[in-house]
């Protein structure tokens, strides 16, 4: 997709002719002529400039007074001077003013050494101050939140953090309080500033006023090294820079600005989750179950046991690959299963298998959008995903598109979404009714329902005809589907209106494919893609958010029961993850869990509990003693953290990105690829050895549409395979043009919807600074249902289905549609997965 072409203008700065893009602010335009104008408050990522700090004053010919270069757009023929005496005295004065109340406690301050205020005072300041009066004082340091410390004395009131809160995260928590020299930053109600993106303000702050508590006094810029890699804690796969000290410890995580992926923002899970790597609970040596207890053993012993267990099971082994695995690791696991053990059972998704035909259609380059396409989209549709929980950085990107770039946003979710206030249209549907909703939306888009294959019941159709004759609303064949989806027709209609455009981008959650009727839902999704004409011209595309961080990459390298590397056909189809519990202990003997924790992440927890108990042999690669490991693993091999890995991952938009090792592994932890290769070697009797780069080469060769990609070409910014020549090697798959099946009748009763939470994760459990965010199970109810059930807000309730119950605290939300109740998936205790089984569920809620 092309962005509007840029025009260039020529202007003069400090006596040189410089060509810069039209409309650029002078600060940016000056860089084209290698002229640096000092700034504090200017940050293009934060939207419109505010001109708060006055540091960027320049002289412009024809203007009597100095102008702020950050908020003056460059014009053709402009003559700018940044070095005149007038400008210099202004710069000196501004620095002097900014330092009037600044404590100059650089030796203590965390920012010292990487502080723009230091640099600018040194470079543009006069070097002295006439100010001898007492400076203002605040209590310091105080916690703005458990993650961010604030020192108000150091603040120069540049507005950056406030603008971040107001315009980027849109949580509207941070504000300036008081006036004049009493102004200070705080939350308007005095509560801690807690939000999914709060950590970004520590990186934005140009002085040491906002510092992150985890990096507080840890190191100076000359003590550390920065290592670029990719965060694999969620599918957003943000580019990060890990600050390491002494090559063995990650001290902080900073954003590595990549407009094509993250726009330079990070969520707090990514920013503070690094503490996981150095958690004292981490498994750093192999464990073997001995008389019911997991005991540390030597690698030799553990590998012997692992080989024996897998060898005994042979083709009766199955593997689950967790989302944090790299493409190389995923490829090796499926190679181990398929080619060495002869077992087809490999899966990386928690749900049912995706039809190969559908997977191919979803991967079509013309149907896929890049993250950057969101900026120039005609409309953005979010289906079934709560982005802030599933891929937080995409949430910011959608907010940016919607608010700052004026892209209409359509939100179609069953649970009220945090994007609702930004949406041009919101569609609510019953939990689990994605199939019906997508069909209804597709039909609404392709001509308002005339071409819809199936009209409703005869009586309803004639009623519509009558209504039309009476000049009332046009008939809608979607009404039936809308009813099945539990959605309102007006909402569907406004949504469809907003979506009619050249380049819509659809963000959909792969969760909608996980259910029993997942493939019907995908068919409906593809029908929607066809209705939006995503496959013709350069119009928009789709981005599917997988459940695991590298879900897309793992599918493409062959971690699917019905697809080999490159989404290729396989001779024998394996069992998907949903069918494994029933087979474990019967037709499947051994289970390989590669950084997977099915008890926590997979639906139908009770079935999995039985299954892992029945499994003859469980080999787990795990970094923590999670429940699955404690309960069932016979051999546990320590897993690497992402900072220790070399390899590649694939972003949900098809961008291959490179993980690079930033720190050494703890003693006793081996590279997982090495361990997998040793397993392959010992089980096959042929020696396999490959250094990481060669392994990547092997994977790129095995996946036809990755072919030709090398680590060099992927580089530090990643490369979308759809944009390479190899994209043509993707097996052609037509968009299915079948009539959609009729969605099933919705069950009667209170319907259960579950969704992940950003904080219901391993990172929150093991990163000390994040622990306070670990969510308690919460049942979100509509006030109507609550009244009917006699539940008051804050009550302990039990949400039960067929006798299995989950305890939760009742939360009443006026925007929850009546008839639905929502729980959080993946919590450490009271996990909602105990109640789900892939199909729509109705539950009972009663006071506990």
């Amino acid at each position: 997709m092309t962005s509007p072409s840029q025009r260039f203008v020529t202007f003069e700065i400090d006596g040189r002719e410089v060509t810069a893009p039209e409309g650029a602010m002078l600060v940016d335009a000056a860089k084209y002529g290698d002229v640096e104008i000092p700034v504090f408050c200017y940050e293009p990522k934060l939207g419109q400039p505010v001109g708060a700090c006055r540091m960027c004053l320049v002289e412009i010919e024809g203007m009597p007074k100095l102008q702020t270069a950050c908020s003056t757009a460059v014009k053709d023929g402009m003559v700018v001077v940044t070095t005149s005496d007038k400008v210099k005295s202004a710069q000196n004065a501004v620095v002097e003013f900014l330092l009037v109340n600044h404590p100059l406690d650089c030796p203590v301050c965390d920012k010292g050494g990487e502080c723009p205020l230091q640099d600018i005072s040194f470079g543009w300041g006069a070097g002295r101050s006439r100010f001898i009066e007492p400076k203002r004082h605040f209590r310091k340091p105080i916690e703005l939140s458990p993650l961010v410390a604030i020192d108000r004395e150091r603040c120069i009131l540049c507005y950056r953090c406030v603008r971040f809160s107001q315009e980027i995260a849109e949580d509207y928590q941070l504000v300036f309080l008081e006036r004049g020299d009493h102004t200070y930053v705080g939350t308007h109600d005095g509560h801690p500033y807690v939000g999914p993106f709060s950590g970004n303000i520590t990186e934005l702050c140009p002085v040491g006023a906002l510092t992150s508590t985890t990096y507080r006094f840890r190191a100076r810029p000359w003590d550390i090294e920065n290592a670029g890699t990719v965060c694999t804690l969620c599918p957003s796969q943000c580019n990060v820079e890990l600050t390491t000290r002494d090559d063995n410890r990650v001290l902080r995580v900073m954003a590595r600005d990549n407009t094509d992926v993250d726009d330079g923002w990070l969520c707090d899970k990514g920013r503070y989750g690094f503490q996981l790597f150095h958690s004292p609970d981490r498994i750093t040596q192999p464990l073997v179950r001995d008389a019911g207890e997991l005991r540390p053993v030597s690698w030799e012993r553990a590998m012997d046991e692992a080989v024996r267990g897998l060898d005994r099971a042979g083709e009766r082994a199955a593997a689950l690959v967790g989302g944090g695995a790299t493409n190389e690791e995923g490829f090796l696991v499926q190679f181990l299963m398929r080619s060495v053990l002869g077992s087809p059972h490999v899966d990386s998704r928690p749900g049912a298998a995706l039809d190969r035909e559908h997977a191919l259609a979803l991967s079509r380059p013309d149907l896929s959008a890049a993250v950057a396409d969101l900026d120039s989209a005609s409309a953005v549709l979010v289906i079934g995903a709560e982005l802030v929980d599933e891929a937080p950085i995409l949430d910011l990107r959608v907010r940016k598109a919607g608010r700052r770039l004026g892209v209409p946003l359509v939100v179609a979710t069953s649970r009220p979404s945090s994007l609702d206030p930004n949406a041009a249209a919101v569609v609510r549907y019953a939990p689990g009714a994605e199939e019906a909703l997508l069909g209804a939306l597709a039909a609404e888009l392709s001509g308002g329902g005339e071409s819809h294959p199936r009209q409703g019941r005869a009586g309803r159709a004639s009623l519509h005809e009558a209504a039309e004759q009476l000049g009332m609303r046009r008939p809608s064949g979607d009404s039936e589907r809308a009813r099945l989806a539990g959605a309102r027709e007006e909402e569907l209609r406004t949504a469809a209106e907003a979506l009619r455009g050249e380049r819509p981008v659809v963000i959909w959650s792969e969760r909608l494919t996980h259910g029993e009727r997942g493939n019907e839902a995908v068919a409906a999704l593809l029908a929607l893609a066809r209705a939006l004409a995503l496959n013709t011209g350069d119009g928009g595309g789709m981005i599917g958010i997988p459940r695991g961080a590298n879900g897309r990459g793992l599918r493409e390298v062959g971690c699917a029961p019905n697809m080999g590397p490159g989404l290729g056909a396989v001779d024998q189809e394996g069992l998907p993850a949903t069918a494994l519990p029933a087979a474990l202990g019967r037709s499947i003997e051994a289970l390989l869990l590669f950084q997977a924790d099915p008890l926590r992440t997979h639906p139908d927890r009770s079935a999995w509990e039985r299954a892992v108990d029945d499994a003859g042999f469980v080999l787990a690669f795990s970094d923590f003693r999670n429940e699955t490991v404690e309960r069932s693993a016979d051999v546990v091999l320590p897993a690497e953290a992402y900072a220790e890995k070399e390899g590649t991952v694939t972003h949900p938009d098809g961008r291959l990105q490179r993980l690079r090792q930033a720190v050494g592994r703890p003693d006793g932890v081996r590279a997982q690829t090495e361990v997998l290769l040793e397993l392959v070697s010992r089980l096959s009797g042929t020696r396999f050895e490959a250094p990481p780069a060669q392994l990547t080469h092997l994977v790129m060769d095995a996946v036809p549409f990755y072919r030709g990609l090398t680590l060099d070409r992927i580089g530090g910014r990643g490369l979308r395979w759809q944009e390479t020549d190899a994209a043509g090697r993707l097996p052609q798959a037509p968009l299915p043009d079948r009539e959609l099946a009729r969605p099933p009748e919705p069950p009667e009763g209170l319907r259960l919807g579950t969704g992940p939470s950003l904080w219901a994760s391993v990172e929150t459990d093991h990163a000390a600074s994040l622990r306070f965010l670990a969510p308690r199970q919460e049942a979100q109810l509509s006030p109507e249902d609550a009244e009917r059930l006699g539940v008051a807000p804050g009550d302990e309730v039990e949400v039960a289905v067929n006798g299995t119950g989950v305890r939760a605290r009742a939360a009443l939300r006026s925007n929850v549609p009546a008839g639905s109740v929502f729980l959080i998936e993946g919590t450490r205790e009271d996990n909602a997965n105990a109640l789900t089984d892939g199909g729509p569920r109705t539950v009972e809620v009663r006071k506990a």
Partner: protein
Amino acid sequence: MTWSPSRDVIEVQRGPDPGGLGGAYRAFGETLRGLKTTFGRLVEGPVTLQYPEEKTPVYPRFRGRHRLHRFEDTGLEKCVGCSLCAAACPAECIRVVAAENTPEHQVSAGERYAAVYEINMTRCIFCGYCEMACPFDAITMGNDYELADYTRSDLIFTKEMLLADPVERTPLRREGE
């Protein structure tokens, strides 16, 4: 070019032949002159310092082993762990790991203190840049020069060692002495 021997011939000047009064003076006179200095010094007594029992006094600005300081009144460490000494050090022999003071555990005067402060004396070149970089005069070059040890690891001086007074004071020479 052909070699002509005449160019390399050097005229050697010889003294008078040995013997006679001149010969006797040369043999004993000069020796006695030298012995005069020797015996002249003999009465001054020995100047050898019986090191290590006796030590050479050093000038006050002599750059010896570093010392960290405390405030005399409060007993708090002057060092706040800012790491500027480590940044200034050309030999990269200083390692600082800072930590935060708490009301219960107040180590230095500021918010921050040096939890680890190590100087690797095997690497230090005693240039004194650390002293110059220090914004709090927390580190100064002391006068002690007896730094030899048996193992390298013993030469990594920790904060406690640097804060403590040296076991033996190095004698100081007065300025102008």
